[in-house]
C-alpha cells in the first residue's frame, strides 16, 4: 500500500516538474476579472480584449464579473489572487479614488499595471432647454448665483465625475461644492434626470451623452481635455473657453496582482498590445465612441500614479476624502 502511494506521489511530482519544465506560461486558462456588471462599457471592453488575448496566447481567457461595492469587490479579487499570470483583470479609475474615500486599503500599488487601453475625458453638458450656448455663460451664471443653486449629477458620491466637477470649480476659484452634486447610478440616469429638469449639469464624458446630444436634448459645452476630441470637433476645451487648465479623464487598464514574474509580465503585455491593435478592438472602440489610448507597463503605471495624486488633492479639498 505504502509502496503504491510512494510510486504515485513520485510519479505525480515528476509529472508536475516535467510539465513545469516542458511547458511555459500559459499552460492553462486565464481568468479575467471585470469589477463591473455584465453589459456595461467596462464589461464590453474586457470581453473583447479577452477574446483577442485568447487568440494570441492560445489558451481560453474566461471573463468573470465580480461586481458590487462600487468596484471594491472586484478590484480586491484581482489584487488578492496569486501573481502567477493566471488571474488578470480590468482595473478602472476607481482604484485611484476609493482608498482616499476610506473604503479600502487597496491602492494601485497592489497591482502590476500591464497597460492602459482606453481613456475618455470628462465634459460639461447641460440640458438644451437651459439656454446656455457656451461654458463661459454657464460659469458666469454659476458665479453670480449663491452656492447650491446649480445642481450636477452623473456618477455616485465621490465618483469620477464628482471629482471632475470639484476639480473644475476649484480651478475657477470657486468652492468645490459651489455646485451641489447629486449622486446617481451613472451617467445615463444623470442625463435623463437633467432632461427631466432634475439637475442642471452633467460633467460626464461626452461619449456617454452622444445619443442625447444627437437628439438635440443635451448641449455639450466643453471637454475637460487638453485637446478637442475627434468625435466632437466643435466642442471647445476648457482652456480655450474659460482658461481653466483642469483636465480629467476616465481610463480602463489591464492589471494583475503585484509581483508577477518578469517573463510572464512581458508575455502578457505583448499579448495585450496585439489585442489593442487588432482590427476588432479598434473598430469596436470607434463605433462605441470610446476613446483609444495606449500606454504599457511603467508608462501606464505612471499615469495611474499621477491621477492618484491629483485626485487625492481635489478630494481632500472637496471634503470627499476620509479624515
Amino acid at each position: 500500500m505504502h509502496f503504491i502511494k510512494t510510486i504515485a506521489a513520485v510519479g505525480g511530482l515528476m509529472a508536475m516538474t516535467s510539465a513545469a519544465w516542458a511547458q511555459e506560461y500559459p499552460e492553462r486558462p486565464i481568468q479575467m476579472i471585470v469589477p463591473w456588471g455584465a453589459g456595461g462599457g467596462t464589461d464590453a471592453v474586457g470581453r473583447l480584449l479577452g477574446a483577442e488575448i485568447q487568440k494570441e496566447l492560445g489558451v481560453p481567457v474566461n471573463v468573470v464579473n465580480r461586481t458590487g461595492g462600487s468596484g471594491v469587490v472586484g478590484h480586491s479579487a484581482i489584487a488578492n489572487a496569486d501573481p502567477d499570470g493566471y488571474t488578470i483583470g480590468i482595473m478602472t479609475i476607481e482604484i485611484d479614488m476609493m482608498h482616499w474615500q476610506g473604503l479600502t486599503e487597496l491602492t494601485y500599488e497592489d497591482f502590476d499595471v500591464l497597460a492602459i487601453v482606453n481613456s475618455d475625458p470628462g465634459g460639461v453638458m447641460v440640458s438644451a432647454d437651459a439656454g446656455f450656448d457656451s461654458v463661459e455663460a454657464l460659469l458666469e451664471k454659476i458665479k453670480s448665483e449663491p452656492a447650491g443653486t446649480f445642481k450636477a449629477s452623473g456618477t455616485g458620491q465621490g465618483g469620477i465625475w464628482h471629482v471632475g466637477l470639484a476639480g473644475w470649480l476649484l480651478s475657477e476659484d470657486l468652492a468645490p461644492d459651489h455646485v451641489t452634486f447629486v449622486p446617481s447610478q451613472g451617467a445615463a440616469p444623470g442625463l435623463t434626470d437633467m432632461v427631466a429638469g432634475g439637475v442642471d449639469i452633467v460633467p460626464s464624458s461626452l461619449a456617454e451623452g452622444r445619443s442625447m446630444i444627437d437628439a438635440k436634448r443635451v448641449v455639450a459645452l466643453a471637454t475637460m481635455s487638453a485637446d478637442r476630441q475627434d468625435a466632437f470637433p466643435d466642442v471647445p476645451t476648457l482652456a480655450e473657453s474659460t482658461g481653466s487648465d483642469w483636465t480629467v479623464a476616465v481610463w480602463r487598464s489591464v492589471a494583475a496582482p503585484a509581483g508577477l514574474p518578469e517573463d510572464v509580465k512581458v508575455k502578457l503585455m505583448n499579448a495585450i498590445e496585439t489585442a489593442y491593435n487588432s482590427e476588432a478592438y479598434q473598430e469596436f472602440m470607434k463605433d462605441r465612441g470610446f476613446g483609444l489610448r495606449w500606454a504599457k507597463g511603467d508608462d501606464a503605471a505612471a499615469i495611474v500614479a499621477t491621477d492618484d495624486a491629483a485626485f487625492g488633492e481635489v478630494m481632500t479639498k472637496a471634503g470627499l476624502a476620509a479624515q
Partner: protein
Amino acid sequence: MSIVIEAANLVFQPYVLLVIFGAAAFGMFVGAIPGLTATMATALLVPVTFFMDPVPAIATIVTATAMAIFAGDIPGTLLRMPGTPASAAYVQDAYAMTQQGRPEAALGASLVFSSIGGIFGTLVLITASPVLAEIALKFSSFEYFWLVVLGLSCAVFISPGSPARGLIALFIGLFAATVGLDNPAAVPRYTFGSVEMMGGVQFIPAMIGLFAVSEVIRAFIKRASDVRPPAAMSKSIFRQQATNLVTYPVQALRGSILGTAIGALPGAGADIAAWISYAVSKKFSKTPEKFGTGHVEGLVEAGASNNGAMSGAWIPALVFGIPGDSITAIVIGVLYIKGINPGPMVFITQPEMIYAVFIVFLLANLIMLPLGWIAIKGARHVLSIPQKVLMPVILMFCMVGSFAINNSVFGIGLMLIFGIIGFLMEENDIPIAPAILGLVLGPMLEQNFVTSMIKSDGSFLAFFERPIAAGLGLFSIAIWAIPLVLWLLHRRSARQNLT
C-alpha cells in the same frame, strides 16, 4: 409601405430566420436554469453578434431575451424557483396550481399571455414611440420615488393574510437592501469589514434561498409526499388559454397597457410592472380571496404586464438612446457598433432598419408559442421524479445559480442564510414575496428619496411640486389612508350601535 416591404426583405432571409430559431433555443435554455438571467444571456451573446449583420445581430438578442423571460417562469411554476423578480409576483399562484396537478395550465397561461403582452407592447412601440418617450422623459427622481412607493404598497396589500404580516416581510427585505456600499452616500453599512459584504445582498441568491431552499428544507423536515403527477390534460394547452382569454379579456388588456407604460419609463422595469399589475388585478377581481391559492387571473394580468414592460423598455432606448433596463443598455451598445445610432434621427435616416427591428419583435413573440409549448411538454416530466431524488438536484441547481451570479462562494452562503430565513418566515405565516420586492426596490427607494432631497435643499414639499409627482404622491397616500379612514369610521359606527 415600401419601407415595410424593404424591412421584411431584411428579416425573411433563411440566415436570419435560422439565427432567430437558434437564439430562441438558447434563450429558453438559459432562462430555464434558475439563477441564469436574461441579462446574462444577452451579455453572452454580444461577442457572437460582432460577426453578424445588424438585423440578425439584433434579432439574436431580442429573441433570446423574450424567450429567457418566459422560460424563467418554468422553474418558478414547477419548483417555486422564480427566474426573475418579475415572475416572483405570481409564483405563489403558479406553484399552487402545480401542487393541484395543473402545471400545464399555469405555464400555458404564462406563455400565451406573455406573448400577448409582448405583442401589445410591440404595437405600441411601432405606433406611439415618440409621444410616449416624451412623457417618459418628464420623470425625475421625485416621480420615481412615488412609483417605488406605489410598488412597495402593492406588495403589502396583495400578500395573502394580514397586511401587518406583509409589512413585516417588506421590512425584512428593505433591511437586507441597506447592507453594503452601493447607497447614495457610498458609506459601508453592516459590512463588518468584509469586502464581500460591501457588495451587499444580491437579490438572485437571496431569491433562490427564500423560495427554493426553504422549500427543500420543508420537504426534508416534513417528508412531503410526492406531488401527484399531472393528470393528462382534458383540453390542449392553447384551447384552455382561449377560455382564459374569453374569461379575462379586460385583465389581459389592462396588464398589457400598464406593463408597456411602466416599461417605457427608464427608471422602472418589468418587476415593478408585474407587481403593480398583480395588485390591480386582485383589487378589481370579483374573487380576490382566491389570489395566491392557484388562481389564474393574476397570472394572466401580471404575465401580460411583464412582457409588455420588456417591449416598453425599447421606447426610450430607440427614441433617445436611454436604456430602460440592463438588457436595453447592452442592446444600445450593439446598435452603436452596428452603425445604427439610436435617437430621433434613426426613424428618418434608417427607417427600414427600425421596421426590421419591429418585425423581429413580432416574430420573437410568435415563435415563443410553439417553442414554449415544447418546453412545457418536456418540463412536466420533472414532476414525475420522486421528491427524494428531485430535492437534492434542486439544491445543486440553487448552488450553481447562486454561484454564477457573481462567481463567488459568498453567493452560496447568502442563499443558505436566506433559505433558513425563508423557512422560518413561512413557518410563521409571513409571506415571502414582499421581502423580495423590498430587496429589489429598497435601493431605488433610497436613491430616489436622497437625490430628491438634495435637489430640493431638504424640502419635503418638492415631492408635490411637479404635477406628475403630485398626482402619484396623492394616489399613494390615498391607498394607505382610505382603508385606515374606513376602518376608523366602521369602528365608530359599530361603537355607536352598541350604545
